[in-house]
């Protein structure tokens, strides 16, 4: 009998699952926290329901004129009703916050992808420049970091099997990272309501074994396709950025070599970390965070470059940034699969958002 139930359980959960597939490195820790919370919630809900029913039955009115006992005070009850919820809430807060830090901080060796959301599709770009629409193919057991932006409204990148969700916001970069641990195909949803076909803005994330991924990538990629960084370099020339940004600082503009990942001082006196968002913003709104010692001469490129071109430029600038930084601070060995991509070297960055977290220790601290 009990064996029958035991045998039926997996089948039952196949029909009525309580959690999505566990397909990333954070799936299990998230599930454990969730189910512990669920158990606590059920326990307290049932406790309160049982108490209420007991009171209603046991102290039910037995005669029409009956009244309850006179007012009482029980400081112990009040103290418990304050301390127990406080203790549980704070313990769960600490647990959740620790996990959140892990969810937000990508491993140093994460491979870098780009994603663009637009009504109502997802566009992805692999490190070697290969593009996919509404499909994302990634290797297993490899940390993936995706830098994302939107071309119109706010979207949100949500893969339930990976337990990750990150809003994709127009006008700025956000990042999400995950390490897929199981091969297979998983739902990709847009989780932020984005207009008419919101519910059709979905896709698939395919996780392949590394070797299969490499083979797939070779098959899909056209060797003649330029890499994002080389496209970015061409843009850098064609947009005449080189006129002011030379290999060393000039009066017109600072050199961009060694810039990425460094702490720079702004004209306002503040310091800021030169990350992807800073590069992006400086191209679109050069006056917003102007570097100390320079005149506000640079024109805006807003409206002249697409999000895709911006991403290419940023990737190119990152290769420049790595050139000097890698000389000053040798990077840890890269444990990720080799794609032969020129922007592999700098994938050692750990800070997802600009200037909001502790400075990256590996950053080339050349200053502004």
């Amino acid at each position, binding site marked *: 009998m009990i064996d029958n139930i035991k045998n039926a359980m997996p089948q039952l959960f196949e*029909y009525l*699952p*309580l959690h*999505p597939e566990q397909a990333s490195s954070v799936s299990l820790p998230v599930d454990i*926290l969730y189910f512990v*919370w669920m158990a*606590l*919630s059920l326990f*307290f*809900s049932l406790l*309160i329901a049982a108490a*209420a029913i007991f*009171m*209603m039955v046991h*102290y*039910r009115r037995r*005669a*029409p*004129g*009956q*009244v*309850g*006992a*006179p*007012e*009482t005070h*029980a400081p112990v*009850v*009040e103290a418990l*009703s*304050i301390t127990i*919820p406080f203790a*549980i*809430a*704070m313990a*769960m*807060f600490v647990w959740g*916050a620790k*996990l*959140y*830090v892990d*969810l937000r*901080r990508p491993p140093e060796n994460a491979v870098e992808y780009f994603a663009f959301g637009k*009504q109502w599709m997802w566009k992805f770009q692999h490190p070697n420049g290969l593009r996919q629409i509404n499909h994302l193919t990634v290797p297993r057991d490899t940390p993936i970091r995706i830098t994302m932006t939107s071309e119109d*409204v*706010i979207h949100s990148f*949500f893969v*339930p099997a990976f337990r990750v*969700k990150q*809003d994709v*916001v*127009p006008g700025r970069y956000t990042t999400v990272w995950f390490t897929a641990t199981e091969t297979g195909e998983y739902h990709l949803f*847009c989780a*932020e*309501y984005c207009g*008419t076909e919101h*519910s*059709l803005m979905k896709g698939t994330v395919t996780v392949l074994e590394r070797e299969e991924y490499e083979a797939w990538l070779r098959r899909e990629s056209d060797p003649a396709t330029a890499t994002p960084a080389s496209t970015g370099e061409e843009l850098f020339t064609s947009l005449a950025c080189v006129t002011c940004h030379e290999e060393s600082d000039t009066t017109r503009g600072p050199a961009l070599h060694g810039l990425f990942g460094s702490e720079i001082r702004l004209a306002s006196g503040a310091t800021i970390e030169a990350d992807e968002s800073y590069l992006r913003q400086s191209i679109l709104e050069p006056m917003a965070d102007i570097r100390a010692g320079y005149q506000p001469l640079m024109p805006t490129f807003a409206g002249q470059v697409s999000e895709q071109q911006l991403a290419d430029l940023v990737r190119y600038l990152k290769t420049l940034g790595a050139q000097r930084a890698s000389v000053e601070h040798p990077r840890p060995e890269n444990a990720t699969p080799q794609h032969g991509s020129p922007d592999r070297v700098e994938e050692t960055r750990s800070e*997802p958002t600009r200037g*909001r977290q502790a400075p990256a220790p590996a950053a080339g601290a050349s200053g502004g």
Partner: protein
Amino acid sequence: MSTASRASSAMPPARRPAENYINRDWSLRSWLLTVDHKRIAILYLISVTVFFFIGGLFAMMIRLELLTPQGDLMTSDTYNRMFTQHGVVMIFFFLIPSIPAVFGNFVLPLMLGTIDVAFPRLNLASWYIYSIGGLFTLAAVLLGGIDTGWTFYSPLSTVFSNSNVFLAAIGVFINGFSSILTGLNFLVTIHRMRAPGLTWFRLPLFVWAMYATSLINVLGTPVVAITLLLVVLERVFGLGIFDPTLGGDPILFQHLFWFYSHPAVYIMILPSMGVISEVISAFSRRHVFGYRFIAFSSLGIAVLGFLVWAHHMFTTGMSVYAATVFSSLTMLIAVPTAVKVVNWIVTMYKGSVAIETPMLFAVGFIGLFTIGGLTGLMLATLGINPHLHDTYFVVAHFHFVMVGGAIMGFMAALHYWWPKISGHVYPGRWSKTSAVMIFAGFILTFFPQFILGYLGMPRRYHAYPEEFQALNVLSTAGASILGLGYLLPAIYLTWSLVDGKRAPANPWGAAGLEWQCPSPPPVHNFDHPPVVTDVYDYGDEHLLAALATRAAKGVSVG
């Protein structure tokens, strides 16, 4: 002054039992130009009921569409309008005004032992402002609808939506003034118009809840009003405030919006909590337990409620440090809410508990609100928020708080004070059936949505993957029971006006000043300002004597 003018107005027909606020004048004009807080409460009751059923109709359309995975009942654009209009109507035109404007208006002056609110004309003006705002929003619905989600997120709302954002935003903007003015009116009334002896710590807990709610209304509503005005300015004049292509910041909109809209959740739930404190005490015939703890927990919730808004934004890319601060502050709200729940339960301990309809709704509130509160803590937990955010888990959570909490409280209040308001008794069997149907239908509708959400079904989805269908079917089945449960009171309460027995002044045998004046109350409420000692005293000699007389006569409660 207003007393004199009312006393001199039309006298009742000779054979009426007594003149009261209803029968003193039946003309439409006397209702639309009334400055009597009780009549204004009736005006609000009719308006919010209309909006409730309009919002409910949208909800039924949503649930019907979700019966099948394909979006086959209506187009995506129609579906998006359904959930947007459901949210806008229910939140801004039902939940926010419901208890304060209806029962706050009706019983607050009675509970304070006074003749009216501090500014009766302003009170009527508030209803007109609410109605004008409502008409704008209805116009937006009828002229093509709104499809931005009730949250009006930019730049979808300011640049990309082709629907009637302007009309709807203006409607909500106008409605905000009604909230602000009602809040102001109540604050002044509570400060200045308490009966002799009614000190702050003798105030009924419903009054404390109204006080806390009014504070949030006065302090928070201007922010959302300005935010929606900015949306309109950006949409109509192209001002770059939120649109990133014009140098604006879409995340700024979310900060401004939630700075009001999170406290607004407490605008909706605090009044219900006040009702529950009254109902639990009255039907247990026992002094409310931990009076000061409940009173201060209302204020605590009102204050903390202003400090947690960014917990709606953990996935926007906000800094980890900011997320930690907002998560921990949100967790603190567990304390005042748990204090309330424990004190309600202990109030029943050694009580004389009568299982009447309002009590059923109140106990239902405690159970459902507890689940809503605990799942709120789960959502505030940073590690699992990214997975749960914007899924059906969130939908289930806030419906447990808003429907299982706020509307259960509204139903409890409606059934508790109906004999006082209408002067009639409603049929107990039907009303208990309704309470049980609403409770069961609610659980069946929204519990599956917790599981759906964890499985990953995003909210606001017109079509969904097939594996989510079974739980959606359960949810829709529950919604039809829930819908019937809400239709019943509309029928039997209306019927009670026609054919229901006359209600005595104090049908429940409850303490509290509002039960000392006749049902329905006369225009001036009290002949003499009552002198107040303790409004929860069930050992009071007069009350005991009255209960004994009633028991001897075999009068049982409605």
